[in-house]
C-alpha cells in the first residue's frame, strides 16, 4: 500500500510541477509578503482621528489632552469640513452629541467610541487593551490570516482542479480502475500533496510576515490550515469529478468563493452584523484561523468534531464520484 501511495504521490508532484502549480504558489507567497511588508503595514499606519470638542459651559472636566477644543459650533463645523476623518463632539447640551462630516451608521461606530472614550479616559467608554501586540503586529497577524485564508480557499481549490481536469482529459483516471491498488489511495495522494503544500505555505507566510514572534502560534495556525486545506481540496476534487470541464468548474468556483469568502470577511472584519453567520461553516473555520493567529486557539470539541465529520463526509462523496468517473466511457 505504501509503495502504491508513494508512486501516486511522486506522479502527482510531477503533474503539479508540470502544471506550474508550485510556481504559482511561490509567486503568491512573494506577492503577499511584499504587499504586507512594503504596502499594507505602512498604509495602515494611519494617524489617530482628531477629536474636536465644543464645550461652552466647560462641563467636561476629565478630557484627554488629545482632544482639540473649539470655541463655537461654526468653528467645529469648519474643523470637520477640513478634516473629514475627524470627529466632532457638541457638548453644549446635557448629553454630548457626536458629529461627522460623513459616516455610515454601522461602519463608523468605532470612531464614536473612540471620541467618547477621550471625554473620560478613566470611565466606562475607555477601550480595553487586549493582548500584548503592537498595532503593527496586530495588523500583520490580521492580514496574514486573511491572505492565507484566501490562498487556500481560492488557489488550493483551483489548483487541485487544474491537475485533475488534465488527468480527466487524458483519460488516465480510467486506467487506475484496473490497477492493483486501493482506489482511495488516488484521492488520498492528491489531498495529502495539497495539504503538505498548504502547510508549508502557511508556515512560510507566518515566518515572513509575522516574524519569529509568530512561531509560538504556528502549531495552532497549522491545525486550522490543515482543516481548511482538507475541506477545500476535497471540495475541489468532488467538483472536478462531477463537472464536465474547467469552464463549468470556474462557475462553480465563483459561487463557492462568494459563498465561502465574502460573508465571512464581512462578518469577521467589519462591523457588519449578520445574524445567520453562526450557521456558516466557513465562518467558524476562519475564526479558528484568526484566533490561532492571535494566540487564542479554538478548544471547542464541537468545532473539531464538526470539522472531522465534514472531512469524512466529503471524502466518502469524493470517493463515490471518483469511482463513477472511472467507469465512464472513453
Amino acid at each position, binding site marked *: 500500500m505504501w509503495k502504491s501511495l508513494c508512486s501516486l504521490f511522486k506522479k502527482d508532484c510531477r503533474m503539479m510541477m508540470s502544471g506550474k502549480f508550485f510556481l504559482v504558489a511561490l509567486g503568491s507567497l512573494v506577492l503577499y509578503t511584499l504587499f504586507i511588508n512594503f504596502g499594507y503595514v505602512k498604509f495602515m499606519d494611519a494617524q489617530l482621528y482628531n477629536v474636536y470638542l465644543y464645550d461652552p459651559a466647560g462641563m467636561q472636566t476629565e478630557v484627554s489632552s488629545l482632544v482639540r477644543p473649539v470655541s463655537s459650533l461654526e468653528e467645529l463645523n469648519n474643523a470637520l469640513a477640513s478634516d473629514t476623518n475627524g470627529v466632532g463632539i457638541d457638548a453644549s447640551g446635557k448629553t454630548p452629541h457626536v458629529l461627522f462630516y460623513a459616516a455610515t451608521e454601522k461602519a463608523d461606530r468605532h470612531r464614536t467610541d473612540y471620541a467618547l472614550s477621550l471625554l473620560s479616559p478613566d470611565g466606562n467608554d475607555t477601550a480595553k487593551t487586549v493582548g500584548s501586540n503592537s498595532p503593527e503586529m496586530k495588523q500583520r497577524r490580521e492580514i496574514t490570516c486573511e491572505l492565507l485564508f484566501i490562498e487556500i480557499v481560492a488557489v488550493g481549490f483551483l489548483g487541485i482542479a487544474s491537475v485533475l481536469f488534465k*488527468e480527466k482529459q487524458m483519460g488516465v483516471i480510467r486506467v487506475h480502475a*484496473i490497477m*492493483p*491498488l486501493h482506489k482511495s489511495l488516488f484521492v488520498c495522494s492528491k489531498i495529502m500533496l495539497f495539504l503538505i503544500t498548504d502547510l508549508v505555505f502557511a508556515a512560510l507566510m507566518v515566518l515572513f510576515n509575522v516574524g519569529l514572534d509568530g512561531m509560538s502560534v504556528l502549531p495552532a495556525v497549522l491545525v486550522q490550515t490543515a482543516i481548511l486545506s482538507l475541506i477545500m481540496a476535497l471540495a475541489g476534487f468532488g467538483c472536478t469529478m462531477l463537472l464536465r470541464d474547467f469552464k463549468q468548474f470556474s462557475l462553480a468556483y465563483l459561487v463557492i468563493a462568494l459563498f465561502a469568502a465574502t460573508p465571512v470577511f464581512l462578518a469577521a472584519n467589519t462591523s457588519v452584523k449578520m445574524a445567520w453567520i453562526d450557521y456558516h461553516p466557513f465562518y467558524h473555520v476562519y475564526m479558528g484561523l484568526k484566533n490561532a493567529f492571535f494566540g487564542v486557539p479554538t478548544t471547542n470539541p464541537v468545532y473539531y468534531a464538526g470539522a472531522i465529520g465534514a472531512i469524512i463526509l466529503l471524502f466518502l462523496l469524493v470517493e463515490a464520484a471518483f469511482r463513477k468517473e472511472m467507469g465512464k466511457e472513453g
Partner: protein
Amino acid sequence: MKMIEVKNLTFSYGKDKQALHGLNFSVADGEIFGFLGPNGSGKSTTQKILTGILKGHGGEVSLFGKDLRTVQTQEFFQQIGVLFEFPYLYANLSAVDNLNYFASFYPKEQLRDVKELLEELEFKKDFLNKPVSSYSKGMRQRVSMARALISNPKLLFLDEPTSGLDPAGAVLFRKIIEEERQKGTTVFLTTHNMLDADLLCDRVAFITNGNIVALDTPQNLKEKNSNHRIVVSYLYQGKRKEQTIEAPELKAGIPFAYDEIISIHSQEPTLEDVFIQYTGRGLS
C-alpha cells in the same frame, strides 16, 4: 479450465436502459475469444463488467474459476491486463516514465523490462524519453499495449488493439497477440476489425442489442453460412469464360469443357458478411 464463464449476464444503466439481456458464453484458458458487435451493442459494457469497472450486474460471472463479485481483490487486478480503446497515457510524461509509473503497482517479480518490451513493439528509440504529447497515434498505441503487457497478465482484455496502426503495425500487433497465446495467456478481444478477428480468434461471439446472436469459430461461421458455390474462370476455344458451380459437382472433376483453368474461387462469405446475416447491421 474455463478462464471466463458468463451465465445469464444482465446489466442496466437505468430503469429503462437495459444494456445486456442475459449473455451466456465461456472462454477457455489460453483461448483468444473475439467479441464483435456494432457501436452500442453492449461490447464495452461486457468488458467493463469483466474487468471489474462496472458493478451491479445480474447473473453469474466467474473469472479464474471464482465469482467476480468476490474475486476483485488486488490479486485479481495483478493477473489481468487491459488495453482500452483509446491510448490513455500521461501526456507530460515519457513512454518510459508512464510505463515505470503503471508498473510500480505490480509486484517486481512479475514485471517485464520496460525497454525490452518497447523494443519488441518496435517503438522508436529516439522517443523513449520524450513526452507522450509528441507521439503519433501509432506510437501511443504501442505504449498502451506495453502497459497492458508489462505485468505478464494471465488474462488480457484488448479493445481495438490495431486501431490507429499502419498495416505493418497491425501485423506486428497480431504477431504479439499470437505470441501471448503461445505463452498461455487468455485473450478477450473486442474489435470492429474483422481481419483481426478472423486471423487471431479461436472463437468469436456476435453481439447486438445486448444479445449474443452467434458464437463459434470463424471458420465454422463462414462455412455454415456459405452458399457452397465455386466460380471457375477458364479459357475455351480462345475465349475467356466464367461459370459458377455447386461445390459437390467438383467431386467428379470440372463438369464442363475447357482448354485451360485460369482460377477457381470459392464463394465463402467473409466474417463481416456473416455478421450482417446474423444481425442485419454492419460493424461500423
